[in-house]
């Protein structure tokens, strides 16, 4: 019974900033991160939220980067609440103090999604590239539940933690979460860069899926488990974004509006910026949003396939990354003439003879990071 009026978007992902203290190697942010000086200011974000409410957005996802890196976070949450938007804070937990969480709750925040990297503290800190991150996340979880806010725990599954998918669900229960998202890594942005180090073997992935599915039943009524299975192992692709430009908008820290967070990797798409156009204009007329709406753009085998209204031919970004052409079927689909590309990648994931390599941690470029530190100090 999900509401579906395809002419209007329901969700806005507001990437308030790309600044983040963590360096998760699967981060969905682009490799080219927006530096602080390019971020929209408070007034612009408020205007974007107002335009979002007017165009029919119901849920506002405050994300990043780490949204708590923004000093105006409470003010932005309060503005969203005034507009009647359902607000969801997607956070690493680093930078959330007890004071900040209680101010956010007072300002009308509806829900918090906290990421955890593993159930094992040392492994979790290694994945995040930040010593002590795990302990601070547990603390952040208690701030959230003590403030009376509902908590969802998010865990991204990959080779280093795939054996503890079930343990992460149990950790979420202990932290007082009402909901947990177990999502196998998707290979965009930093995830694509680190794919060789992240992809679990088929056996490991299947064992994790079985474990989590069993917990869905045994923990029913205690915690809701939303499970995103790894698409590389599936026969059909996922209905990416519930179809291109059908339900959500994504605004980057500098105000560019994307149909999905990875869309910028597709060359030749023209994205509009909130500085130049209203969200309504962008939703209805931006070339990037119209590029893959409907099915006129589709090629075979999707064009004559009966599943095209179910999966929309899969993910455009993945089709581009793995076949070089965004209009092709997502090669995860076994009907795709490029499906062998996915099979080759999976075969490599089984080959553990490669020496272990360090992750390429997600970071702003060193020069930018130094400049950012200086700005932080002078702004105090």
């Amino acid at each position: 019974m999900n509401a579906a009026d395809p002419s209007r978007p329901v969700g806005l992902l507001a990437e308030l900033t790309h600044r983040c203290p963590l360096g998760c190697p699967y981060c969905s942010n682009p490799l080219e991160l927006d530096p602080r000086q390019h971020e929209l200011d408070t007034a612009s974000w408020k205007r974007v939220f107002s335009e979002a409410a007017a165009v029919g957005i119901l849920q506002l996802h405050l994300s990043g980067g780490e949204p708590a890196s923004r000093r105006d976070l409470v003010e932005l949450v309060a503005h969203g609440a005034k507009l009647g938007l359902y607000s969801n804070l997607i956070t690493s937990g680093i930078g959330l103090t007890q004071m900040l969480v209680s101010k956010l709750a007072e300002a009308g925040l509806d829900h918090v999604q906290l990421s955890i990297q593993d159930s094992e503290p040392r492994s979790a800190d290694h994945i995040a590239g930040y010593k002590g991150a795990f302990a601070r996340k547990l603390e952040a979880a208690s701030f959230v539940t003590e403030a009376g806010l509902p908590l969802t725990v998010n865990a991204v599954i990959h080779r280093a933690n795939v054996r503890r998918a079930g343990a992460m669900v149990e950790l979420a229960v202990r932290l007082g979460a009402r909901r947990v998202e177990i999502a196998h890594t998707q290979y965009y942005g930093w995830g694509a860069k680190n794919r060789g180090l992240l992809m679990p073997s088929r056996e490991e992935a299947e064992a994790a899926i079985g474990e989590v599915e069993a917990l869905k039943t045994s923990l029913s009524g205690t915690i809701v488990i939303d499970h995103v299975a790894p698409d590389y192992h599936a026969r059909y692709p996922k209905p990416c974004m519930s179809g291109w430009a059908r339900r959500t908008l994504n605004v980057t820290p500098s105000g560019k509006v994307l149909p999905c967070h990875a869309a910028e990797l597709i060359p030749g798409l023209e994205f509009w910026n909130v500085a130049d156009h209203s969200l309504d204009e962008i939703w209805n007329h931006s070339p990037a949003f119209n590029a893959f709406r409907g099915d006129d753009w589709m090629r075979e085998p999707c064009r004559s396939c009966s599943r095209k209204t179910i999966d929309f031919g899969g993910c455009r970004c993945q089709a581009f990354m793995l076949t070089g052409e965004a209009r092709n079927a997502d090669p995860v689909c076994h009907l795709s003439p490029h499906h062998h590309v996915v099979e080759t990648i999976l075969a490599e994931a089984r080959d553990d003879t490669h020496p272990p390599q360090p992750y390429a941690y997600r970071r702003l470029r060193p020069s930018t990071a130094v400049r950012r530190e200086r700005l932080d100090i002078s702004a105090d």
Partner: protein
Amino acid sequence: MTEGDASSLSGASRPRLPRGVRLKHDDIRNEWLLLAPERVLKTNAIAVEILKRCTGEKSLDAIVDDLASTFTAERSRVDNDVRALLTELATKRLVDL
């Protein structure tokens, strides 16, 4: 959820929507929606009347009485509807009992 679960709900429990679950009339689409983490649920007229009364103040029995008299409906049918809806939503953790 089985029928047994729905009928084992205590009439004395005081159902309420927890923080993070909101009933909202969407003026743009002109419909009632239940907003929850990562979910937007279309809500029919009967469900709206039930959920409006789930404030944590009234007991399940009192909610059924109220609905049965407001809509001059058979109490046992209302009772079934209310229990079925609340049981389903409780499994999804969208209502606290």
